[in-house]
């Protein structure tokens, strides 16, 4: 069983990397980019039966720093199962 965890900076948290990517896109001549936010995608290969709660606990304890980041869990082939 596979799950994907998306870790993103909370709204309002300054994202210097996103800003740099934004500038680089503009430098390449891409117009119309209003904003860029960079995050992480973590793919987990899990034992069958791993619960959503367990995955969320992994996110809270390690995969995301909930001071500055949000996470979203997506089981493969299924819609978002849990948000925080």
């Amino acid at each position: 069983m596979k799950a994907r965890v998306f870790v993103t900076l909370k709204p309002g948290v300054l994202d210097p990397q996103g800003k740099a990517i934004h500038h680089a896109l503009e430098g390449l001549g891409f117009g119309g980019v209003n904003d860029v936010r960079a995050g992480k995608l973590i793919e987990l290969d899990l034992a069958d039966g791993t619960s959503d709660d367990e995955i969320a606990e992994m996110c809270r304890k390690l995969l995301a720093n909930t001071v500055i980041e949000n996470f979203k869990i997506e089981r493969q082939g299924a819609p978002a199962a849990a948000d925080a």
Partner: protein
Amino acid sequence: MRAAVIVFPGSNCDRDLAVAIGQATGKSPAMVWHRETALPDGTDLIAIPGGFSYGDYLRSGAMAARSPIMQAVVQAAGKGVPVLGICNGFQVLTEAGLLPGALMRNAGLHFVCRPVGLKVENSQSIFTSAYRSGEDITIPVAHHDGNYQADAETLDRLEGEGRVAFRYTEEVNGSARSIAGLINDGGNVLGMMPHPSARSSLLMATQTADACSKACSKQSRSFPALRRRVRCLCKA
């Protein structure tokens, strides 16, 4: 004093810190590997050094904060044992929940490596009592992720409780309210981005730092002299 320096894979200021602690206390600290589950008996100072623990994977300090020895560090901190985290050590302390907030990528995106001006905000703590409040000091920084952030409520509380130990007196990394060093609510945990251990000998202090920045910025002819000097230091 029985100090312990915690060593993670990727720590690179552990030996500097051990030398500085040895000079300050007259006794070499125990070097404690991250896989240990207990601190040496009677440890009365825990120091977490700078570096790039676990290659800064996931987030700076994130993996180190979950390594086996950190449970013992968190326990000891709860009992009032002083804990000092420098640079990556500060990042580890925030990730371990011993200090609030988080250290993010420098606002300018550059790795910043130079002596910076600091103001001592709190001279009442066990770590800063040799300073005067408001004193201006210079300590080198060397970091990529030193941009301290916390929500406004937390920042107000930290300032209100006098828990900001040091503030930058110049723009360095975009830190909220120019915070360079923080103390926990118990007063026994200090995290700071600048490296005081990098000022522990005259040779390593401003001369080398100044020479280093000149050599780096202008590739001046002083570089061979600097190299000789660093070699001497390594042999000493």
